[in-house]
């Protein structure tokens, strides 16, 4: 549990109710004649939500329309105030809930930069200093001195976004504004978000774009009817969310379930989890029939760090409750964004394990070299029969970080050498372990 000063946003027990007026009841006539007869019904948009977001984290709020995610964002940005509960935000907040708020159609693009910037809390000096950068980012060229009313909607949004991303907050709240402009411009926006992430900013984004969530977010909070339904690692949350969304709309749950296509949806055990725990060691997502149960696991990973190219072994202790045949042991490696980049099992490797008697067994997976590039990785382990339901699937049973000074790009370091004109070159920066704390 991270201590308080590492939390950028703390939402504790927040409830927000809206009055849905059947008719607008704001005139004197209504107040007098319908006194004591409230012509509205209450609608609970956010229902007892508790959430803490550590500093530097990027959190995606997902959920169906009307699930309360935008209301939650507005509560955090102090546009709305909670009826019950408390919200604390540490640091300067900038909320980009709408692009071009306060843009005045009669003024030129340049003038609007200053108006809009002022609304976002930017000082005049900061704006003057960044004016050229903003204009260049917006790709408006000479149009910058034309009144905004003559802009196309794309130009309008580009200018708005260019101003918006100049803000330099500690906490950035973003609502559904990433889908702006053409593909090259979008790429620029994504880059800017990446920059902000690299600068250690805390970002909370509401979006329906699951691709963006997967790309940017460390954590996903799935809102459902005003409550937090699930929070945790993006891939699993998105899967569960999409599955529910499809089931509710009557679509078959076959087909596009989620980005990893894995389709396995475990118990929603991480509900009410603290966000701080999410990427910490070993998640607790497990499911299966437990006819054989993983009761222990030991790896050669020390302190969660492995060097690139170092050997790895994983020993799994399994308790078998009644004699079983055709048992398969599997192991899967996943990158942080949930993509599986390697997976194998004893069946695929043609390892015949025979019948397992009741009692404790231990299986070891040995890899002489794990040539992964720096990053965070997760290992899934599983015991299952050749056919039928899995005995015990342990998602992210182990997580580790590859720490090394390597600057190669990609996920895996393919063993290689260089040769030119028949002369062999040796590679000097041999993959070595470098512990970064």
């Amino acid at each position, binding site marked *: 549990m991270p201590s308080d000063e590492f939390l950028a946003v703390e939402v504790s027990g927040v409830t927000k109710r809206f*009055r849905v007026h059947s008719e607008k009841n*704001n*005139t*004197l006539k209504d107040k007098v004649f319908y006194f004591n007869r409230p012509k509205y019904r209450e609608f609970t948009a956010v229902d007892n939500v508790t959430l803490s977001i550590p500093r530097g984290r990027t959190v995606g709020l997902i959920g169906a329309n009307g699930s309360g995610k935008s209301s939650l964002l507005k509560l955090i940005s102090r*546009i709305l105030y909670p009826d019950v509960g408390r919200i604390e935000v540490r640091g300067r907040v900038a*909320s980009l809930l709408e692009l071009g708020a306060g843009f005045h159609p009669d*003024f030129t693009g340049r003038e609007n930069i200053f108006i809009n910037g002022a609304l976002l809390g930017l*000082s005049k000096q900061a704006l003057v200093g960044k004016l050229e950068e903003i204009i260049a980012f917006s790709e408006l060229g000479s149009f910058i001195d034309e009144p905004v009313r003559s802009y196309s909607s794309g130009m309008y949004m580009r200018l708005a976004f260019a101003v918006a991303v100049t803000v330099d907050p500690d906490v950035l709240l973003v609502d559904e504004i990433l889908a702006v402009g053409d593909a090259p411009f979008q790429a620029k926006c994504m880059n800017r978000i990446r920059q902000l992430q690299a600068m250690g900013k805390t970002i909370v984004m509401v979006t329906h774009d699951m691709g963006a969530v997967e790309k940017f977010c460390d954590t996903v909070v799935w809102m459902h009817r005003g409550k937090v339904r699930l929070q945790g690692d993006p891939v699993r949350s998105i899967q569960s969310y999409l599955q529910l969304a499809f089931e509710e709309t009557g679509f078959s749950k076959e087909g596009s379930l989620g980005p990893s296509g894995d389709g396995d949806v475990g118990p929603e055990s991480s509900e009410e989890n603290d966000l701080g725990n999410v990427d910490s060691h070993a998640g607790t997502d497990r499911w299966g029939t437990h006819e054989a149960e993983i009761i222990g696991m030991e790896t050669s990973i020390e302190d969660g760090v492995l060097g690139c190219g170092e050997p790895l072994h994983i020993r799994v202790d399994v308790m078998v409750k009644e004699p079983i045949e055709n048992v398969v042991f599997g192991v899967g490696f996943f990158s942080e964004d949930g993509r599986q980049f390697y997976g194998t099992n004893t069946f695929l490797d043609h390892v015949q394990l025979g019948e397992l008697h009741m009692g404790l067994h231990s299986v070891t997976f040995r890899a002489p070299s794990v040539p992964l590039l720096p990053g965070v990785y997760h290992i899934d382990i599983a015991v299952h029969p050749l056919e039928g339901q899995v005995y015990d699937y342990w998602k992210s049973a182990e997580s580790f970080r590859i720490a090394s000074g390597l600057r190669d790009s990609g996920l895996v370091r393919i063993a290689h050498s260089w040769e030119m004109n028949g002369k062999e070159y040796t590679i000097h920066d041999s993959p070595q372990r470098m512990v970064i704390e």
Partner: protein
Amino acid sequence: MVGRITEVWQYKVMLRSLVLSELRTRYKGSFLGFLWTFINPLLMLVVYTMIFKFVMRVTVPHYAVFMFIGLLSWNMFATTVAASSSVVVRQSSLVKKIYFPREVLPLSVVGGSLINYLLSLLILLPVLIMNGYTPTSLWLFFPLILLVEVLFSCGLALAFSALTVFLRDLEHMLGIFLMAWFYVTPVVYSLAMIPPKMMEVFKLNPMTDVVLALQQIFYYGSPPNWKMLVYGAGVSVVMLLFGWGIFVKLNRRFAEEV
């Protein structure tokens, strides 16, 4: 409370930007543009002088000067109150979409009216001089009197801007209310014309104190009536605190109601 003041201060760039865009858009697209800031009070001067001097036969000497002093000051007050009552609803797109201390909105209305008033003084000055009223040291009281009026306007602007969000009729009621208020303030007539029995009632009106003080320093050439001005200042401060209190209480629900 100190926290809120510093927060409003942090948003002074936004405040200034709102005031400027309000001033700039007011006459945008009209042929005479910004000149209207000066033409309007001049035309008003002509109309009121015609009616009260030639139709109603008011016998105040240099009536145009006398009336103009009060009228400009009243106009600043009345336009502030009228415009502020709808400002939150008018700016609903901002209120719903971004965070800022909501006080900025009514304050921007006060700022806009204040700047307009100061500009209209450029008309008052030649009118004074043409009628033989040359600057005296008494004119130095002007900023003090203006401060009292601004505080009072702020108080009402805060109160009405917040209340109108929840009771939209206020905006329409204010028109008639301000008209009545105009006639119980000695702008077009002098306080001397009030029957002595009713004098005390008239003096309760803080706008009387402001207008009278201005007339005293510019027109009568006497120092302001301190008793009245201190009373006016007191009422203004109370109004400011009261209006602000209402605003603080109500502004949390603005985004859902507009």
